[in-house]
């Protein structure tokens, strides 16, 4: 076997691609032909020369260890592409993942070593002299924070007024007024520096055209928005954890707090959601010793993949720094102490009744929570009329799949994996239904991603 006994799978490599064209272009370069002088080191770096259309081949280096700086893989390529990672980096990783002997272990050539050394130096410096998180001028920072809180309060007050006006006149009119009203209100919330509120307001605008049952959904979301407004206005009276949740839901940036959690973390799932400006990547991790589930978030500006990428199904020792908040799922990846390696471990599953109970519990701490991560033991994907559910044969109960999940290709991968037999499924359980994200068939060695 090779370095740390592990190579990524093609799926894992392709998950790094910033968009579909890059994925395709990368796959085509993922073969021995165009590559020369390719190699990899025991420390998890891969390099190679890729023949392009020009006379000089491109020099491509990838550092997959993340070198402990929590940024995930790093790439360097002499090609002019603005995509990140570029198709050459993807192709090189695919060749490396393909294990056909094109990428032997060895010493990096000078051009690769130069970059790697500089990178190692930066990381060491960063680690030995951690930048102090306290700002230079605490008083000025305090003043800025107060100023921002005032602006948010003004925005919240205005939003409350708008909600009251809406309900006084009736939501029936919302069907006609359409997006305009909400877009304008959302813009006001952006001005008030409350991006969390702005996003919720924008979603309100889409509900009246979302099909049957919209009046119920609109009232629910208006009510929860109102609850958040009131939470902000009364944040001084709330328990500290709930207040922290309200702050982050409104959109105030938070910093990880508390001691880092060191554990053997299993990567359960990784998926992206994107709007026109931002790609958000969610990575679910399971601490095999602490039995905790954590969520890592990473962002990429339009056209760029979020920098953090972790191979689903593998596990590694690492420190995670949790964020404040009542449910405490979000965390930042700290130092990685080992490289990701396959593991026979899988998260212990619960029955479906326990899954809904856990979501209920979590709502008590964070009423705005859409869903909660949970692993189901022994469920069978089952067609129920025109939708799908996960049936627990032991309890004779089932969780319906969320509408968005039932239309994704991952559904069929799940059904195929099951073949009508029970299997373990990790996913998000919420009021819209269950969204499966990874599955472990009975005799499989590792997790199989569904997203």
């Amino acid at each position: 076997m090779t370095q740390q006994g592990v190579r990524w799978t093609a799926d894992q490599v392709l998950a790094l691609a910033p968009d579909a064209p890059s994925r395709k272009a990368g796959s085509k370069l993922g073969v021995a032909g165009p590559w020369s002088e390719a190699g990899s080191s025991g420390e998890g770096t891969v390099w190679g020369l890729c023949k392009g259309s020009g006379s000089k081949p491109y020099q491509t280096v990838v550092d997959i260890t993340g070198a402990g700086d929590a940024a995930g893989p790093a790439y360097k390529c002499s090609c002019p592409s603005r995509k990140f990672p570029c198709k050459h980096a993807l192709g090189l990783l695919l060749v490396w993942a393909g294990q056909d002997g094109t990428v032997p272990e060895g010493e990096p050539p000078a051009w690769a070593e130069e970059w790697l050394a500089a990178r190692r130096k930066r990381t060491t410096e960063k680690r030995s002299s951690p930048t102090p998180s306290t700002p230079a001028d605490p008083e000025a920072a305090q003043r800025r924070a107060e100023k921002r809180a005032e602006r948010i309060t003004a925005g919240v007050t205005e939003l409350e007024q708008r909600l009251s006006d809406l309900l006084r006149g009736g939501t029936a009119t919302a069907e006609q007024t359409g997006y305009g009203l909400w877009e304008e209100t959302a813009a006001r919330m952006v001005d008030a520096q409350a991006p969390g509120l702005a996003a919720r307001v924008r979603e309100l605008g889409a509900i009246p055209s979302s099909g049957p049952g919209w009046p119920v959904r609109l009232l629910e979301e208006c009510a929860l928005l109102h609850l958040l407004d009131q939470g902000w206005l009364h944040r001084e009276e709330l328990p500290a954890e709930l207040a922290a949740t309200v702050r982050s839901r409104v959109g105030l940036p938070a910093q990880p707090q508390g001691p880092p959690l060191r554990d053997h973390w299993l990567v359960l799932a990784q998926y992206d959601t994107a709007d026109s400006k931002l790609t958000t990547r969610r990575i679910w991790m399971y601490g095999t010793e602490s039995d905790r589930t954590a969520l890592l978030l990473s962002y990429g500006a339009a056209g760029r993949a979020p920098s953090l990428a972790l191979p689903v199904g593998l596990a590694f020792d690492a420190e995670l720094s949790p964020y404040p908040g009542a449910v405490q799922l979000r965390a930042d990846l700290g130092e990685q102490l080992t490289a990701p390696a396959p593991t026979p471990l899988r998260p212990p599953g619960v029955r479906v009744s326990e899954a809904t109970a856990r979501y209920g519990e979590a709502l008590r701490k964070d009423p705005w929570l859409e869903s909660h991560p949970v692993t189901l033991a022994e469920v069978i994907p089952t067609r129920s009329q025109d939708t799908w559910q996960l049936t627990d044969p032991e309890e004779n109960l089932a969780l319906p799949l969320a509408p968005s999940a039932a239309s994704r290709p991952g559904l069929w991968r799940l059904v195929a994996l099951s073949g009508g037999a029970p299997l373990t499924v990790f996913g998000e359980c919420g009021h819209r239904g269950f969204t499966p994200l990874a599955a472990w068939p009975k005799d499989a060695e590792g997790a199989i991603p569904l997203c």
Partner: protein
Amino acid sequence: MPAEARTPALTPWEELVTTALLGTDRRALATPGKEAPRTLLDEAAAHTVRRRAGLRPAPAAAPPEPATDDPRPPVPPAARRRLATLLTDQPGSGGSGRRGAAPDLMELLPQWLSLANARGYGAPPELLPALLNAARGRTDLRPQALTFAGPRALWLARLNPDWKFALRSTPGGGISLPDPDDTAQVRQLWEEGLFAERVALLTTLREHDAQAARALLSATWRTERAEDRLMFLDTLRTGLSETDEPFLEEALTDRSRNVRATAAELLSALPASALAARMAARAASCVAVDHVASTPTLTVEAPHECDAAMERDGVLPKPPAGRGERSWWLGQLVDSAPLTSWQSRLGNRTPTEIVALPVADDWRGELHAAWCRAAVRQRDAAWSRALLGTPASPDAAGPGAVSLAERAKLLASLPPRERADWVAGFIAAHGLSEAFQLLGVCATPWAEPLGRAVVDSLNIARDAGSYPWSFSGVMGLAERCLDPAEAVRLEALTAIPDEPENASPGAGSYWSEAFQRLVTTLRLRAAITTELTPDKPQRNGS
């Protein structure tokens, strides 16, 4: 938390929704409050959180019948990853006309599948949806893809209408056929089964025990519908032998004309059959050697009528538009007559000597074409060789007596090595432009001389300064059929050559790109073979 929200909500949820729709100005809330909209929102918030927190699982629907077990071993991990990569390369997602230097991964899928099937591997379940989608878009992939996909794919296809084709393409819709030796079971399925099941049964049985299959068929023959009889008769092509003759002879009197024609065709492929003898006698009366001429010459006297006996033996009386009746009848007589009968008829000459004889009155084309059809149907290597002639002969490439399509068919009756050598000779003499069809019938991977002839010709075409896309068909074939071991020799051709004066602009770099793609594809094919061959330990880059 605001004080109002802590008090239990009094108004029922439905009531709140109605009020919210109409507006508090129009419809008063039951709960008194100084500010109605605010009270409504407070109560709705309490309701919403309570409703969500109180979520319960739904009653379970009946789960599907589990899929039947696939006893085959799973593909090795490296091969599994390769398949995942091949399947991600969906056609139509790129869309630029030029192919560039990267290999066409989808084109390698058939090779991957046939190797995996030959090694008896089973499909990884999580890749079944992608595999079924690929097979859905490409009918040519279906047989191999469905064999590899196994029973679970059929189980999936019953759940997803997009994959219905899998149930149609699998004989009997994936039902399990009885053991061919279990006579009682076989008879029961034959008598009670659906049409598709019966065809599948007969096909399987015919491969296993040709006579038993025919016995089964003749037992119910008279009661079958005409279109069913035609399909059943078709299964006799497998393992056709003299013992089938009485049955086929009887089918010559069938009510259905298509059945009669098929029976006649099958009989004519049996040179010792009575039908073949009758056809030989008829054909022989039409062709003779004229010894009076200065050199021996073949004379042809086409039949003057198509009598009832000829019709009964499968001769179609009506020619297609544009063909004369008499030459149409002659063609059918000659292509159904056993080729062996000509040697004694035409003065104990060898096939080569017969083919070389001049033919009087412009009958040569007609006569040779019929012999070609006969040689193909009777798989006669000696006659095929004679009709093909030498690959270097000038009319081998031109519109001579024997067309390229016919040559391709004739080649198929030669042993693989001879076939490859003949095509190599043809390419060396005539270049690549006419060789495409002939290459298609050669065994893969191409034998060394053939591979070399193709590569040399490509090289010559490049030096001549033309563009590579004039040869894209042959290039594509080479990617699929060249022996991967050739990759090393081809490496030198990937360099961009100096452009000769009269070359098409930029051709050099396009050729370099095309050869690069060829080399890359060959390497990939070598990797695919290694990954699917478990005895060879995987090289792991150490």
